[in-house]
């Protein structure tokens, strides 16, 4: 009997040992994958990762691998903390020496040029090339990166979330009958749009729209004003990049553009361009944003919120209502004439804002069954992304209310709470409300007075002219 | 009356001095030739006079006005240039080109007037180019083009005409035609014409006077016979030439004598005296000098070709006045030369009473024991104009042991042998055959 027990124990120990050994060897076994270019790559370790390409960087950080990232390219700027690790200058054609200097054991490269991959390989680096073709490839790539770096679990969950979000959009938009025509503007002047074989184009199609320039011959399309006017898009997506952020007001000012359907309907949206061009996790954010714009009826998000104002509660203090979802809004009711129903509708469109004010978030239409005698504090929340996208300074945020009689926007006395990211104002009249901000002038847009510029110009020309004259005098001997 | 004065002009190309202290003046109606080898500064001088190249020192005056103080247009109204190279690479018509000559007369915003067209037409008729008016300039022959450019220069209505080798591309007919035209214009319109010539004969025919340049300096200036001398030509061009006055035209003509002397490799001490004349000795003299012998000759009449050859070869000669008989004095001088010679040669010169004494001198040479060679290319009977006396003397020479040879080669080999075996004069004579 004891013999049997001892035997069992020994067998158990041996089994455990075997499993341990197998596990151990597996743990240090090199990982072999096939990357997007069809290359079979053997990765021995991934403790020091160099990421070339913003999409790769974003994938790595999404998987929590930020501390393993030793260097990135110059365009990787999300999340913000990665900016300090920008070492590689040329994303398209990275200099192998710069990469080697970082001593990585793995290089993730978002394919700019295939020749660059070979160059890096020749330099002895382990390169995994990412080049997703469709949006579905992105979750697959995330899984692959997770597998390489031992973060399979996290990768799986992230990939499945993203996959689910993509599928959700696809399901919603398969049956749409009306597909609005979309023009994504990358640059002006002259207008640059997205043609086929670009992410922008894919997003439009997935979101249930038609790309106004889907028939172009190339991906990046430089075109004319007239072309856009002729194609008459229903929706204009104006991408915000470092130097381009054309708002509705800007676009309306262009000759002939006023007649475009999208401009007339005021369906011009500013979106961070990085949500549309980087094939990383954030492109799905872009997709969702686009879907909501193209087919708001499908978003399923509540747009109208109703609250009951109870005078009894008001007697003892403030009655607070919170709205979250499309927008984060708090209403702190101070006083009311009697019990009534407060309806808050969140709208994409509203009356035209004054020239230099940009809309942060969306319009609010607040109405009450008993409008008189009502007073409340309105808190509209914003986030840093919105400010950055619109290039609006925090200090300039103000809540505006629409004066129906005078047909104009009036600025409310608003206080900005920078730590909690909201703007607060006291409201006594019910109408449309909008949180607006003024664009902060970019450094190169700091106004130097025109007179200074012209004067310095004239000065330079005079000096040069005098120089020429003196030279002429000296050389006059013929 | 217009005067062109060049005073002390010094010109540089960069740091290279091209003209040094050039001064002369020309008045209306004078056709002056500018002569000199390539690189002597002729074109530079023309450039300076036309105001294109500013001199570092000195000045050019046109009627007391300094050229370089004048505006370019004013200069162009007075001075016209016909350049060396008349190639035009564009298909302008001939009339266009000639009308360009009116440019200095048409102010900035004006168009060409009737007068301009008439002037151009006149110029073209003078140069016989009016029939080419509508042709393209780059289709013409060199000669036609040159005439067109001359027409353009004339269209400028200048007071001074500068020409750089105006006849280079022309055939002889055209050359004379153009020069006649220029001469006529010079005289009739009182132009000042300064032209560069490479052809001395042409220059001497048409020029009133000439300026000879060498290495940027004036070597000689004045009438043609003063400037065009053998010495000047030798000094400036390093060419030996004979300068003669043509009996019919009265102008000088220059004949380069291509004495391409191969330098004597050996300077021998052997002295040969040559008795010759009428060109019969030229070859011998030349060959002997080339072979390095010490050569003398006599007696030769001054205008005789052999005399001139001897002069050119620097051979000491006893000379005699032309057309006169050899004087006793010269005869003695000849004998003196012979006495120090190692050999004497008598060429197949015709003998008359004027030079009979030369044969007597040969006889005297034999008496002195000096080996004497008689060259008989033609028999003496054909060359005797003394009624038999020369023939008699020749026979005498033969009997006294003079060697008779038929040609120059034979002669030379004998002389060589003679030189080798100098003392034995007799032995050589014994081998000489008649």
């Amino acid at each position: 009997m004891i013999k049997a027990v001892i035997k069992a124990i020994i067998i158990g120990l041996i089994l455990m040992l075997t499993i341990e050994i197998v596990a151990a060897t597996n743990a240090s076994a090199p990982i072999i994958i096939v990357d997007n270019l069809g290359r079979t790559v053997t990765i021995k370790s991934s403790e020091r990762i160099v990421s070339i390409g913003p999409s790769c960087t974003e994938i790595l950080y999404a998987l929590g691998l930020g501390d393993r990232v030793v260097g990135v390219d110059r365009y990787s700027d999300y999340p913000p903390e990665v900016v300090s690790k920008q070492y590689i200058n040329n994303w398209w054609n990275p200099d192998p020496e710069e990469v080697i200097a970082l001593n990585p054991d793995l290089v993730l490269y978002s394919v700019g040029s295939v020749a660059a991959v070979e160059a890096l390989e020749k330099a002895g680096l382990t390169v995994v090339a990412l080049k997703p073709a469709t949006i579905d490839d992105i979750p697959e790539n995330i899984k692959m990166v997770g597998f390489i770096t031992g973060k399979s679990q996290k990768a799986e969950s992230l990939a499945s979330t993203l996959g689910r979000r993509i599928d959700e959009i696809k399901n919603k938009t398969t049956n749409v009958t009306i597909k609005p025509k979309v023009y994504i503007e990358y640059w002006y002047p002259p207008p640059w749009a997205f043609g086929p074989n670009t992410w922008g184009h894919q997003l439009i199609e997935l979101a249930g729209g038609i790309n106004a320039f889907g028939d172009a011959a190339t991906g990046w399309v430089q075109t004319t004003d007239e072309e856009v006017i002729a194609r008459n898009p229903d929706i204009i997506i104006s991408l915000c990049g470092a130097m381009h952020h054309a708002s509705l007001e800007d676009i309306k000012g262009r000759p002939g553009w006023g007649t475009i359907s999208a401009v007339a309907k005021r369906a011009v949206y500013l979106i961070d361009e990085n949500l549309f061009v980087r094939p990383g996790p954030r492109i799905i954010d872009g997709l969702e944003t686009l879907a909501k714009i193209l087919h708001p009826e499908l978003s399923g998000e509540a747009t109208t919120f109703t609250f009951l104002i109870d005078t009894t509660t008001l007697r003892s203090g403030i009655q607070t209502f919170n709205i979250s979802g499309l927008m984060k809004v708090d209403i702190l009711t101070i006083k009311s004439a009697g019990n009534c129903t407060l309806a808050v509708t969140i709208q994409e469109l509203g009356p035209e804002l004054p020239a230099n004010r940009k809309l942060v978030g969306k319009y609010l239409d607040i109405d009450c069954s008993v409008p008189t005698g009502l007073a409340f504090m309105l808190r509209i929340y914003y986030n840093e992304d919105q400010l950055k996208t619109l290039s609006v300074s925090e200090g300039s945020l103000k809540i505006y209310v629409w004066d129906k009689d005078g047909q104009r926007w009036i600025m409310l006395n608003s206080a900005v709470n920078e730590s909690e990211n909201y703007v607060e104002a006291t409201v006594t009249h019910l109408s449309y409300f909008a949180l607006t901000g003024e664009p902060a002038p970019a450094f190169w847009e700091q106004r130097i007075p025109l007179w200074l510029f012209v004067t310095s110009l004239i000065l330079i020309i005079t000096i040069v002219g005098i120089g020429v004259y003196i030279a002429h005098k000296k050389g006059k001997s013929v | 009356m217009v005067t062109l004065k060049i005073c002390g002009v010094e010109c540089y190309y960069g740091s290279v001095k091209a003209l040094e202290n050039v001064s002369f003046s020309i008045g209306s109606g004078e056709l002056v030739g500018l002569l000199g080898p390539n690189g002597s500064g002729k074109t530079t001088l023309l450039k300076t006079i036309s105001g294109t190249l500013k001199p570092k020192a000195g000045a050019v005056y046109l009627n007391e006005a300094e050229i370089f103080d004048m505006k370019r247009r004013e200069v162009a109204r007075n001075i016209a240039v016909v350049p060396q190279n008349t190639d035009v690479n564009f298909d302008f018509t001939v009339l266009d080109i000639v009308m360009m000559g009116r440019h200095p007369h048409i102010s900035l915003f004006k168009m060409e007037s009737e007068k301009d067209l008439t002037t151009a037409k006149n110029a073209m008729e003078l140069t016989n180019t009016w029939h080419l008016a509508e042709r393209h300039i780059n289709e013409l022959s060199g000669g036609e083009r040159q005439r067109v450019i001359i027409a353009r220069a004339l269209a400028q209505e200048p007071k001074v005409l500068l020409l750089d080798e105006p006849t280079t591309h022309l055939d002889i007919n055209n050359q004379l035609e153009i020069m006649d035209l220029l001469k006529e214009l010079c005289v009739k319109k009182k132009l000042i014409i300064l032209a560069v010539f490479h052809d001395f004969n042409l220059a001497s025919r048409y020029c009133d006077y000439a300026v000879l340049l060498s290495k940027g300096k004036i070597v000689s200036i004045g009438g043609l016979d003063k400037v065009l001398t053998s010495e000047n030509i030798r000094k400036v061009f390093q060419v030996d030439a004979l300068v003669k006055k043509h009996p019919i035209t009265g102008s000088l003509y220059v004949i380069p004598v291509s004495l391409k002397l191969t330098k004597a490799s050996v300077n021998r001490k052997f002295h040969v005296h040559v008795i010759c004349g009428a060109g019969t000795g030229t070859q011998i003299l030349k060959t002997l000098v080339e072979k390095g012998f010490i050569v003398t000759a006599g007696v030769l009449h001054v205008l005789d070709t052999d005399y001139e050859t001897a002069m050119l070869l620097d051979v000491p000669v006893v000379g005699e006045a032309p057309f006169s008989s050899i004087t006793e004095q010269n005869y003695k001088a000849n004998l003196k030369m012979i006495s120090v010679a190692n050999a004497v040669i008598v060429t197949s010169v015709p003998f008359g009473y004027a030079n009979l004494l030369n044969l007597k001198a040969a006889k005297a040479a034999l008496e002195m024991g000096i080996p004497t060679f008689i060259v008989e290319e033609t028999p003496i009977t054909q060359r005797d104009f003394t009624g038999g006396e020369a023939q008699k003397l020749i026979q005498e020479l033969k009997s006294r042991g003079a060697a008779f040879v038929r040609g120059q080669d034979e002669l030379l080999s004998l002389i060589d042998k003679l030189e080798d075996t100098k003392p034995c004069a007799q032995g050589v004579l014994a081998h000489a055959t008649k």
Partner: protein
Amino acid sequence: MWTAIILVLFVCLLFSMALASTVGPMPMSVGDVLGIIVHQIPILGNVVNGQWTSLEESVVVQLRLPRVLSAVLVGAALSIAGVVFQGIFRNPMADPYVLGVASGAGFGASLAIVYGVGLSSLGLFYAIPLMACIGALSTMFLVYFIARTSFGIPVLRLLLAGIAVSSFFSSMISLMIATAGEDIHAAFNWLFGGFPISRWEYINMAAPVILLCSVVIYAFARDLNVMLLGEDQARQLGVEVETVKKRLIILGSLITAVAVSISGIIGFIGLIVPHMMRILVGPDHRILIPSSALAGASILVLCDAVARTILRPILLPTGIVTAMLGAPFFVYLLMKSGKTTM
């Protein structure tokens, strides 16, 4: 004879302008387009009144007309500059960019695009052309300084100085492109030459300069003729060669600088049109200058129309079209004429 040529060319130009105006993505009838254009002429235009929408009028007047007129100005300017430089340098390969004006303009424009120089007070629309102009003129002064000697400006030194300065600025432009951010690449299409941004403001600023320079250049036509014979001969025929050269270089560079500031660097027009016209009308500058201007304008207008439509909706840089069409056409002309050109 000359008047006939000018008239014919002028009609060609009008025809090209009309043709180019009617071409575009907005469907409009030819009659409407022409009607709108004629209507713009003050006083006389009121005769014509048709049925067109204000959108159509806006498209024609704000979008198409400025493009066409810009092409006319630039085509004329570049052709005239080409004639002038080929005359001064007596070199058939000379074109308006031979003194490095193009690279200087590109450098100025790049400064505006990359570093926002001048952007503040003028905005993107004005900064680029103004900086391009300044760059071009600075280059001209630079080349002049380098090339001059105490005897004047020898032609060879000018050409060499132009090449040197041009290479320098080109490399600077390449440097800026290499180190600039990704966003900038869209703006660099300016360098390829074209009229993507055509505004009346540009035309209003450039037209007077170009017209004035052209008239003054024409005054030197006879001098240019004589200068073809060579500098020495020209002097001997009364031409103040150094003065004329200097003035013509300044005028030629100025007209090129203004043209380049509107349109970017468009090649071939300045090189080929003068040659073409020389074959057709002869070397006399009094006819060559105006006929080159008219021909160059017509050609550029047509090339621009092609650039706009051939790869719709993509806008090709006009410079590419001029190169592709210009070169073979010139070869054809060359083969056809047996006459010696330059």
